[in-house]
């Protein structure tokens, strides 16, 4: 026996502390100290294994060396392989569920404002759609189609182990604005219930785990600085009549009075409300290293400032983050502290201008020196001197005279301690706190055109709000990990989780106060979620893998008898590539078959006390006069004592593969997800309750789909590298049980019209329309629809289902090409079979609109195709307006150049990027990608150019 010494360093020459050095085949070992030194007693011929998370393991045979110094190479491949799966991590190879990870090096590049954008188009079955083209705006993520009719459809976001509250806080555009995308190390998407069931009731729509970048044990601190400059260009605007076209129309169809209202100007109102170019900049800085020798840390700050293309729109965000990962007692105690804060300032340009710019008379000027409203042209009723009550407000005035600001502060922090009780048992306690706090105010100038009469309240208005949301978390769990006889590995987790959500909203309205009404409103609620969970993973020789989990959740939203839900999962996988019969074949690197079943519950989005009989008192605008007094009234609220968990069950089978030396890799998944006891706000016999609708468990829904993903490393040489990635998913969503149909999808034009329907046997939100009749030239005939049930009258019974807003097929295609210091990446998507309802055209393209209400209103150019005279319910609900909105879109193209080290370890990278480069579609509206499918007053997505610089030193 000899004692051998040595030092472990990284490729950057820095010492690496904490490296495990084990004598192969024994349980003897040691770890390197802070300076990377180690010493170990070893026998001749024994093999030393050096391993450390994030680095390639090395094996060195002891043959009597005096000193063994080791340089460890970073292993990005291995880094990717470790996935965060909820109350633990697992190697990709050991997983049994449908889980995908995208790490920072594969993130989408370019003008990324929010975390969701990092993975747009990257993962099969994950659809990310931005709500609009406004900076910082929300993103809708759906994983494998809609899971619920009226409850939350968004996945659960877990940031460093804290499930965050993704109910939007007032004034905030996106719950993930808390996190600077630059701070994210990886995003892991848990798609099937066998993977998500450990999160139980919160995970009905999948889980997105966000892992932030952490400090490293490197001796030297490293700094990273990035700068970005963005320019957003307006693309299309709504196709409306020009001033001269409009003038012709009014001259042809108007009465002398109406013709007399024409102005002499030629104003392109859309031109007026959008800027050609909106600029922005971004600055990020981070430092990571090991402080005081025992405290790996990372600190970051970020600043983003982005104007929107709607004039005056602005999003400014400051973020700061600190991660500390100290270890104590010879690494027996590992502590992680994350503190993450953001401060966001929003200036919301008045979006009413988007709609009014479409319909405002183009022959009128912006300014009118006779106008009593700040010199802005307005449709004034000469009898009252006020704006006509049905007239739209001058779009420029509504942008300039309304000031809408908000500030959102949010802090998410958690402290996690992992303590090794024994060699095999680890105890973890995680305490988290998430608070967001927002303030906002809307100030309407006293110059703002209004139909309030002179002498009324024409003195402007001010509304304010402040909201606070708190989410407190306490998790405690034990992890047992052991290997028996080299081949049986068992990992088991058991724990407890408690979460409390509190909401406190306040708002104020100056106009109400001036009228003597209650002007301050308070809205408060809270709910509690309490859970026990357990999971066991069994691994036989890395060939056969079994996972079982069970979570018991209790929510304060449900009555005590139905409060507890139990959500189990089972899954298994077979690593065929590890079988001995595969030994002879080196074709496959990975060939894994997976199958699993799991259940998850959902009450997210449900009201907090629906099972209790509550009385709501009236506000001062809804009191009732008795005698000479006005009495506050008490209304019993509709209630449902029988509410229970909405439960989704998924069966998933999948195959992971990699072959030709990992050149080709990917996965295939097929799933059926059944959601039962679907909660919907639905009809109840009002003789039995205090209203006609309650939240009730009423129906079932099914999602079926297939996902396929493939990555191909086409070229991988010293100078060249070329990767191609492609994914495709097919999803079919059907309501399988729904006793009463539900009209949904409110549209503008008339009052109370709904274009969509939930019906058994159909996709949710299917369009429910009349069938338009066309003449021999293919022009729609006004007011003529097909009598589909042949009963001689056209009424509601002749409506039918035509298509739905959801794509049948979604594809993502991305490629990275690099040559020496150059790199080029392209990200694109295809969506097939998604249909949109063009509400802008349907509500604005009938002739009478031009002259009605004693004003003039511009028409959508679709009028030239239809010649429709009047708006009717049936005209609005005609299938003429349902259009195929399939599209191909190049989301992003980025070209970058990496400078070789200028001095020391300093690295520079310069890149340029274009977002939203190209969209190919047959859809007539301004953008085919409309979340929910109803295209109305859509804030156009701009094309964005970015120039960026990263410095790593």
């Amino acid at each position: 026996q000899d004692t051998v010494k040595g030092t472990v360093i990284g490729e950057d020459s820095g010492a690496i502390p904490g490296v495990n050095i084990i004598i192969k085949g024994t349980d003897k070992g040691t770890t390197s100290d802070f300076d990377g030194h180690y010493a170990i007693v070893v026998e001749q011929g024994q093999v030393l294994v050096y391993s450390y998370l994030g680095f390639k393991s090395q094996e060195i045979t002891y043959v009597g060396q005096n000193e063994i110094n080791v340089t460890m190479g970073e292993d990005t491949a291995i880094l990717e392989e470790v996935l965060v799966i909820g109350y633990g991590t697992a190697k990709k190879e050991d997983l049994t569920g449908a889980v995908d990870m995208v790490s920072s090096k594969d993130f989408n590049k370019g003008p990324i404002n929010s975390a969701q954008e990092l993975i747009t188009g990257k993962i099969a079955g994950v659809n990310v759609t931005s709500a609009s083209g406004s900076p910082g705006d929300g993103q809708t993520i759906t994983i494998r189609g809609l899971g619920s009719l009226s409850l939350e459809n968004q996945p659960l976001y877990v940031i460093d182990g804290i499930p965050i509250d993704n109910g939007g806080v007032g004034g905030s555009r996106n719950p993930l604005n808390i996190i600077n995308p630059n701070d994210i190390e990886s995003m892991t998407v848990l798609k099937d219930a066998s993977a998500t069931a450990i999160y139980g009731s919160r995970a009905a729509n999948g889980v997105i785990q966000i892992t932030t970048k952490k400090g490293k044990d490197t001796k030297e601190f490293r700094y990273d600085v990035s700068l970005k400059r963005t320019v957003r260009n307006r693309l299309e605007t709504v196709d409306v009549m020009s001033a001269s076209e409009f003038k012709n129309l009014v001259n042809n169809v108007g009465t002398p009075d109406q013709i007399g209202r024409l102005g002499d100007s030629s104003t392109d109102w859309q031109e007026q409300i959008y800027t050609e170019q909106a600029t922005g900049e971004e600055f990020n800085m981070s430092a990571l290293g090991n402080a005081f020798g025992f405290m790996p840390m990372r600190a970051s700050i970020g600043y983003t400032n982005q104007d929107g293309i709607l004039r005056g729109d602005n999003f400014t965000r400051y973020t700061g983050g600190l991660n500390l990962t100290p270890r104590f007692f010879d690494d027996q105690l590992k502590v992680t502290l994350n503190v993450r804060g953001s401060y966001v300032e929003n200036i919301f340009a008045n979006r009413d201008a988007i709609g009014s710019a479409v319909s405002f008379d183009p022959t009128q000027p912006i300014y009118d020196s006779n106008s009593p409203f700040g010199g802005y042209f307005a449709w004034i009723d000469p009898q009252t001197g006020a704006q006509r009550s049905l007239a739209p407000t001058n779009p420029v005035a509504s942008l300039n005279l309304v000031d809408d600001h908000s500030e959102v502060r949010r802090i998410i922090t958690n402290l996690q301690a992992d303590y090794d009780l024994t060699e095999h048992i680890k105890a973890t306690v995680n305490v988290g706190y998430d608070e967001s706090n927002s303030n906002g105010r809307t100030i309407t100038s006293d110059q703002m055109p209004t139909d309030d009469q002179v002498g009324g309240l024409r003195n402007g208005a001010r509304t304010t709000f402040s909201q606070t949301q708190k989410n407190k978390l306490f998790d405690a769990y034990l992890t047992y990990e052991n290997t028996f006889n080299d081949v049986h590995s068992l990992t088991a987790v058991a724990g407890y989780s408690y979460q409390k959500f509190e909401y406190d909203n306040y708002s104020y309205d100056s106009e109400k106060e001036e009228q003597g009404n209650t002007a301050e409103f308070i809205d408060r609620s809270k709910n509690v979620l309490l859970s026990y969970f357990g999971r066991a993973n069994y691994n036989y020789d890395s060939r056969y893998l079994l996972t079982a989990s069970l979570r018991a959740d209790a929510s304060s939203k449900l009555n005590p008898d139905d409060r507890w839900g139990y959500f189990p999962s089972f899954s298994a996988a077979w690593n065929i590539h590890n079988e001995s019969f595969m030994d002879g074949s080196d074709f496959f690197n990975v060939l894994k078959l997976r199958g699993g079943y799991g259940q998850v519950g959902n009450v997210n989005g449900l009201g907090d006390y629906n099972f209790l009989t509550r009385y709501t008192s009236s506000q001062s605008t809804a009191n009732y006069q008795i005698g000479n007094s006005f009495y506050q009234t008490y209304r019993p609220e509709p209630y449902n004592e029988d509410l229970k968990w909405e439960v989704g069950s998924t069966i998933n089978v999948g195959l992971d593969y990699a072959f030709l030396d990992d050149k080709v890799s990917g996965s295939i998944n097929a799933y059926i997800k059944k959601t039962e006891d679907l909660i919907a706000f639905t009809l109840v016999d009002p003789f039995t309750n205090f209203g006609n609708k309650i939240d009730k468990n009423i129906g079932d829904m099914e999602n079926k789909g297939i996902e396929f993903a493939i990555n191909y490393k086409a070229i991988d040489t010293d100078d060249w590298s070329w990767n191609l990635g492609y994914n495709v998913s097919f999803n079919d969503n059907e309501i399988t049980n729904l006793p009463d149909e539900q009209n949904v999808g409110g549209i503008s034009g008339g009052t109370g019209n709904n274009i969509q329907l939930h019906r058994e046997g159909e996709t949710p939100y299917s369009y429910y329309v009349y069938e338009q009749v066309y003449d021999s030239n293919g022009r729609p005939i006004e007011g003529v629809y097909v009598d589909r049930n042949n009963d001689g009258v056209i009424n509601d019974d002749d409506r039918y289902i035509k298509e739905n807003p959801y794509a049948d097929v979604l594809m993502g295609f991305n490629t990275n090409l690099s040559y020496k210091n150059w790199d080029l990446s392209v990200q694109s998507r295809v969506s097939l079979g998604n249909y949109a309802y063009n509400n802008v055209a349907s509500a604005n393209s009938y002739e009478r609109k031009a002259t009605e209400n004693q004003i003039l209103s511009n028409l959508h150019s679709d009028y030239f195709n239809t010649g429709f005279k009047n708006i009717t319910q049936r005209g609005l609900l005609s299938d003429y307006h349902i259009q195929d909105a399939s599209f191909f879109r190049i989301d992003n193209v980025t070209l970058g150049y990496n400078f070789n080290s200028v001095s020391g370890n300093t690295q520079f990278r310069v890149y340029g990027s274009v977002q939203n480069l190209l969209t190919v579609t047959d859809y007539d509206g301004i953008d085919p990608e409309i979340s929910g499918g109803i295209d109305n007053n859509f804030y156009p997505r701009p094309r964005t150019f970015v120039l960026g610089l990263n410095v790593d030193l």
Partner: protein
Amino acid sequence: CHDDLNQTPIDPDSTTEEDVFANASQAKGALAKLYASLALTGQQGPAGQPDISGIDEGFSQFSRMLFNLNELTTDQAIVGWGDPGLPDLHGLSWSSGNDFTEAMYYRLAQEVSFTNSFISNAELLADEEVNQFIAEARFLRAFAYYNLMDLYGNVPLTTEISTELPQQASREEIFNFVEEELLEIEDQLADSGANEYGRVDRVAAWALLSRLYLNAESFIGTPRYNDAVTYSEKVINSSYSINTTDANGNGSAYDELFLADNNTNGAQKEFIFTLNFDGIQSQTFGGTTFLVHAAVGGTMNPAEFGINGGWAGNRTTKSFVNKFVKTNAELNASIGPVSDWGIIGNSTPNGWADPDTDMYEASPNVFKIFTELTEGELKFRKNDDWSVSFGGENGNLIPDGDNIIVETTGRVVITLNLNNNTYTIQSIYESLPDARAMFYTDGQTLEINDVSTFEDGFAVTKFRNIDSNGNPGSDSTGDFVDTDLPVIRLAEIYLNYAEATLRGGGGNASRAVNLINELRERAYGNNSANITSGDLDLQFVLDERSRELYWEGLRRTDLIRYEQFTTNQYLWPFKGGVKDGVSAPTYRRLFPIPNDLLTINPNLTQNDGY
């Protein structure tokens, strides 16, 4: 920590049953809701926390829906809006999923549930004041059931809150329940006039019984005209009286009933049951806010109605307008003898061809004719000959002068005054002698060609948001209206008495004539239009009800009672969706049970025909 799962509301607007029914003064807030749920639409006002879901909140207000179901389906009203299901109402073609027929059912059923819950909770208080609340709650429940029975016929009868799906009762069972309840609470309600404004007293129970009995034959096939007379008499003999205070001094005390201060200007003496509105504290997009706004459009000046703008929806048909106007032949017959003078021209019925349209001699050298003019010109001439003729302009006659250009078209009265060589051409609708004929005709046509055009059909100016002094209501923005809405007022009971008497109810015929003349004297400002017992027949009473009570939510029921609602005995413009009107199937006398409810509650059977 498990205890933490038992959370209770922490919102300051949320209260528990124990708090609401802690004592009489708290319970009064719950009673106020029972009244408010017929006037308002939710707890926020004008919109935001609706009572009824799935329909535009403003649409879901009780009296607005009553207007839609009982007036819009008749000759009295037509609307130009194209909201889902709305045009089908006047067209008598609603489907069993019609938004308005559904929402009214929900509103009334909810009122039943509210009252059931109130009654069972309030009974536990065992308090004298609360006992009167309970009687009022029972009245409101009976009122809800009266309407359910009238509109839908067979509905579930529930008297307590239970999640068990109720069985459907027959129309007769509902009728009997309403009757029994009203008879039972009659003595528990306050004495006539002894309650606070806005709360009902026992006269309301009698009045609703009068209405119930009058329609008994129509509802359940059993005539109860004697009872109708009995309970009408009780009402007539009560402390309520017909308003005769002409507070704004415009010559009639009728319009005061529908002004912003009708709770104080004298009109309140006539109101037996009202829905109270206030522009500041009781805001809704239904109620009188709807009645005033929706009727204003075209060239009407919103300020004259105390509002900031019209919604340009509701008008009326010529069938109703003509209830105030005799035929031209009748009118001409009352002028005097046929004269030698006549009118000729392309604006007159015979054009420029002979013979002239003869005028009648009203007094020496003054000639008149009631006729129909179209756009064009005319001249006056004598003996169908050009030897003596007048043209003219601006009301002045010029011998052999230029053709007179006709500016006022439609039904007009033309006066030729040879004493001072002047002429007038006046629309007969401009100043009808009956003050109840409140029409706006400028820019409006009597004839309706396009239902969706506001200018087609006369506008109705009955409801206003200005007070007797001409000042607008309390909401200075002009959005919400103060005017209260009488749901039952004494004039109706007068007419109930007259009709029940004529239908053999044993009333006094000459008293019936007097009661009607009391209404007509108010309408005309004098006794010039009083009737005699010879004039009084059933059709006259129906027409008089129409003139007196239009747009107050009674017309459909009246027409059904007279077999004129669906039949071809009486056609009005766009009845059945056809311009000249057609009959509709008899089953349209009842509205359908909401179709979706049939799947929720299998105990329900749909009304025949749907």
